[in-house]
């Protein structure tokens, strides 16, 4: 008599070898998918939505591709998660982290086939990761003291990040934009203060950085179009009428004139509210909700600029940058913090009018206006710029900088290789495998650029045999070049995050020896 069924009907269980196989296959499939986007000559993907509208996104950003995939493989999901975490933490290297984790697993698969216990592999990987990190931190360059040099470091990092994206043609322009924006932040990592506005039309080169804040709204009718020394009240309040919100509340009257009186009273309430708002001594009023015609006219009469129906994101940011607070009651003018800015005026961007707040309280704030041929270009440009901004703001905090172009991987691989030779036991196989996985990254970069990867990587390895070598892959000329001379730099923080989270993810997947798939929840038949 067999054992009673333990799991539910549709649930399934995969054990031992099979489970491990499933994880490896899933993770490697994901890696192969995003692998081709790596590096300056990486390709783009079209993401075609199967949902309504069949929206199309063209992207090179690993996180964006992975985020939108349909995935049913648990191991693949782990990789997607690390890419997301990488995106949140440091913003860039989202493809690298997945590729490295995938390569580690690919190596692990071979070791497992050679009957090495997964736990041995894990401990070997751990030692190797530790060693690689030390190797990296010994080779960092830190220009914290020298502002001039540090700025050029930032420029280099921005250029390196952007060169693998759609902005690569105009990377000089955008690197400058991103560095300027991040320098304004003065060390804070609050990217909220950098606003990105996308306006179709023009070309990418027409994009610009503007100090202050731009709100994509129109100024009410008959109101001043330009205010100097503005005092701004940001509010989220209903400007139709203060309704009595009790269900079924109604008034009973016995004549038409009484109805008119009530209407008058309602109007009067509105007027009072407007008076209260104006009594704050403001000359600009921004509301999250609609401002109806009647209050709009009252504001116009008082010479107050009123902006209605600002989006939620917009007013929060506006409150932040002007140093005000979002108000919803207006009885105590003293307690409401009012925002300030030097000048409000209407400007034209492309074909549309927007409102520009300059000289705002929070000096860090700035706006980047992106122009480009189509929405696809703009969306992708925004993603690329966002990556660059993230990396730069992280670098401002952790000023350690590395060279790029496969240089860090080769440095790590060399150290890890040496460690393998010193380590006795089976672990050394795992450590060796780790070094092979590291070398896979420059190999992929070369492959994507259509270069002879085997030849180049061998040359690179030979070059790195010398102490203090700066060699990396120069994709443009297709040869081994000096990364310091070419000005290709990467942030230490990004590399470290890639290394550690990829190792951790690989470790996690290796530990798995059983996959239990729960029965899908039955949908109730209500349809």
């Amino acid at each position, binding site marked *: 008599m067999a054992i009673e069924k333990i799991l539910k009907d549709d649930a399934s269980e995969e054990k031992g070898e099979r489970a491990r196989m499933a994880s490896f296959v899933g993770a490697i499939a994901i890696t192969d998918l995003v692998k081709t986007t790596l590096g300056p000559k990486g390709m783009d993907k079209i993401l075609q939505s199967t949902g309504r509208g069949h929206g199309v996104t063209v992207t090179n950003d690993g996180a964006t591709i992975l985020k939108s995939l349909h995935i049913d493989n648990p191991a693949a999901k782990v990789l997607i998660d690390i890419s997301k975490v990488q995106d949140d933490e440091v913003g860039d290297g989202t493809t690298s982290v997945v590729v490295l984790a995938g390569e580690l697993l690919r190596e692990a698969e071979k070791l497992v086939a050679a009957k090495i216990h997964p736990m041995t592999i894990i401990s070997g990987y751990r030692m190797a990761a530790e060693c690689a990190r030390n190797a990296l931190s010994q080779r960092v360059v830190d220009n914290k003291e020298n502002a001039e040099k540090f700025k050029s470091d930032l420029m280099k990092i921005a250029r390196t990040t952007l060169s693998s994206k759609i902005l690569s043609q105009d990377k000089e322009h955008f690197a400058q934009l991103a560095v300027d924006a991040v320098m304004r932040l003065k060390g804070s990592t609050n990217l909220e203060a950098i606003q990105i506005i996308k306006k179709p039309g023009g070309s990418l080169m027409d994009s610009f950085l503007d100090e202050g804040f731009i709100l994509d709204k129109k100024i009410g009718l*008959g109101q001043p179009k330009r205010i100097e020394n503005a005092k701004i009240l940001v509010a989220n309040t209903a400007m139709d009428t203060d309704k009595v919100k009790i269900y079924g509340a109604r008034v009973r009257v016995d004549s038409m004139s009484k109805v*008119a009186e009530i209407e008058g009273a309602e109007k009067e309430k509105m007027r009072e509210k407007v008076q209260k708002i104006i009594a704050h001594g403001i000359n600009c009023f921004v509301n999250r909700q609609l401002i109806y015609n009647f209050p709009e006219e009252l504001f116009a009469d008082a010479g107050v600029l009123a902006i209605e129906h600002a989006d939620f994101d917009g007013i929060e940011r506006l409150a932040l940058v002007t140093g005000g607070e979002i108000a919803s009651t207006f009885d105590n003018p003293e307690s409401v913090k009012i925002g300030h800015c030097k000048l409000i005026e209407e400007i034209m961007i492309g074909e549309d009018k927007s409102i520009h707040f300059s000289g705002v309280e929070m000096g860090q704030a700035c706006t980047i206006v992106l122009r480009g041929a189509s929405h696809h270009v703009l969306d992708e440009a925004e993603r690329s710029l966002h990556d660059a901004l993230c990396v730069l703001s992280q670098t401002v905090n952790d000023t350690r900088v590395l060279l790029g172009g496969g240089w860090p991987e080769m440095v790590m691989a060399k150290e890890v290789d040496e460690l393998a030779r010193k380590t006795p036991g089976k672990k050394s196989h795992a450590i060796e495998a780790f070094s092979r996985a590291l070398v896979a990254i420059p190999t992929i970069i070369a492959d994507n650029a259509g270069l002879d990867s085997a030849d180049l990587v061998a040359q690179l390895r030979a070059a790195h045999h010398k102490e203090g070598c700066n060699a990396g892959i120069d994709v443009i000329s297709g040869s081994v070049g000096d990364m310091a001379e070419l000005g290709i730099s990467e942030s230490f923080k990004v590399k470290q995050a890639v290394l550690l989270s990829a190792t951790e993810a690989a470790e996690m997947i290796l530990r798995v020896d059983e996959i239990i798939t729960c029965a899908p929840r039955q949908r109730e038949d209500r349809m």
Partner: protein
Amino acid sequence: MAAVSAAQPRASKTESYVDNKRKEDIRQSNINAARSVADAVRTSLGPKGMDKMISTANGEVIITNDGATILNKMEVLQPAAKMLVELSKSQDAAAGDGTTTVVVIAGAILKQCLSLLSHGIHPTVISDSLHKASTKAVDVLTAMAVPLELSDRESLIKSASTSLNSKVVSQYSTLLAPLAVDSVLSVVDPEKPDMVDLRDIKIVKKLGGTVDDTQLVKGLVFDKKASHAAGGPTRMENAKIAVIQFQISPPKTDIEQSIVVSDYTQMDRILKEERNYILGMIKKIKATGCNVLLIQKSILRDAVTDLSLHYLAKAKIMVIKDVERDDIEFITKTLNCLPIANIEHFRAEKLGHADLVEEVSLGDAKIVKVTGIKDMGRTTTVLVRGSNQLVIDEAERSLHDALCVVRCLVSKRFLIAGGGAPEIELSRQLGAWSKVLHGMEGYCVRSFAEALEVIPYTLAENAGLNPIAIVTELRNRHAQGEINAGINVRKGQITNILEENVVQPLLVSTSAISLATECVRMILKIDDIVNVR
């Protein structure tokens, strides 16, 4: 030096491109899809281009020659084909004209890319070379351009008519071109001379008559009739116009209310009160001297009732009701008045003044015209007429293109020859340039140059001329230094196109080249299509 020469051949060898089957397939299918879109609109290029009839999903029929409109209605699904549709939209936004040209150029470049790829050149190399070529092309075009003064009305009209000549309404280009020029020039703000907001030009379509009857109105036109209930006035001289955003109807509160009537006599009293209430409002209006009311549409309650219309008619006030809220800004800007949101604020200084407001019958429909506005804002209205809805719609689209052309000239004051002349010249100069470039780049730039010949080729083909004979002769003439030689479609031969008055704004040509290249580069860089949620 030796190192450079040693590196050169190796670099070109390693740039060779080996790829797996799937990526090749994806790229092929993308390029083919995009090309088939381009082929679909190719025949509508040029003055002798043909129109397309599109029958939309909801049974509507559209006949048009406008690339952007055709592509927009085609509902393509293939992602790469969709990008071409987007491309045409971008051109529409950037320049307003040349929406077909941009797609045709993109298609031709893609065709060349296909053969470059089959030679094993890496897509990113092609993409970079295309970028260089397009930058160079823009430089060449700029060098060819002729500067223009806004006071030179003749040249402006010429370029507007070039745009109109390729449309259904081409026989009316003598009428529509000056109209477009005048309307754009009248909204140019002297303080910001490079900016034209086309929203300041309102196009009102009215069925009936022919396109010949299209006119520019210095003032306002409402596509509605004045309120006729109770025999109100339909013509008013020395009008004092109020734009009101409140309602002339019995009061209604936001809070729910009910009037309790307990006996028969109260009914009379309520009716009387209602009458008095409205009468009171109208008296206040009358007191300011207002004699024309524009009433904004209201969703909360009736903007006017029969009763109030009756009183307004008695007070000799002309009423135009159901004005959309979106139009209020345009109206107040034109009339130079302020909207009035409450009866208490009804003051004489908020009124706008006009010499004449009258209802005009056009066939069986009626419109209201406001003319002779005092201190009129910088706005214009164009009244488009046509014998059927299809013609009117097409006339509107063509007029929009013409307006865009004039706007381009206002913001970038350079003209360039039409009739395929700039493209052939570009092709010649880039071809010469490609010979001095090294490696793959030169090869790609030459392909780009060849791709540009598609425009004169298609122009000739659509006009029923022998394309090969025409293109070769054009090349010949350009090689001899006649940079303005182009195809004269009417005469069917090659002439100096500047003398034939076929000119277009520089901005249209430059943006067509750079946008098309950008789009092609994007398509080239794609190696996979992933289905996502």
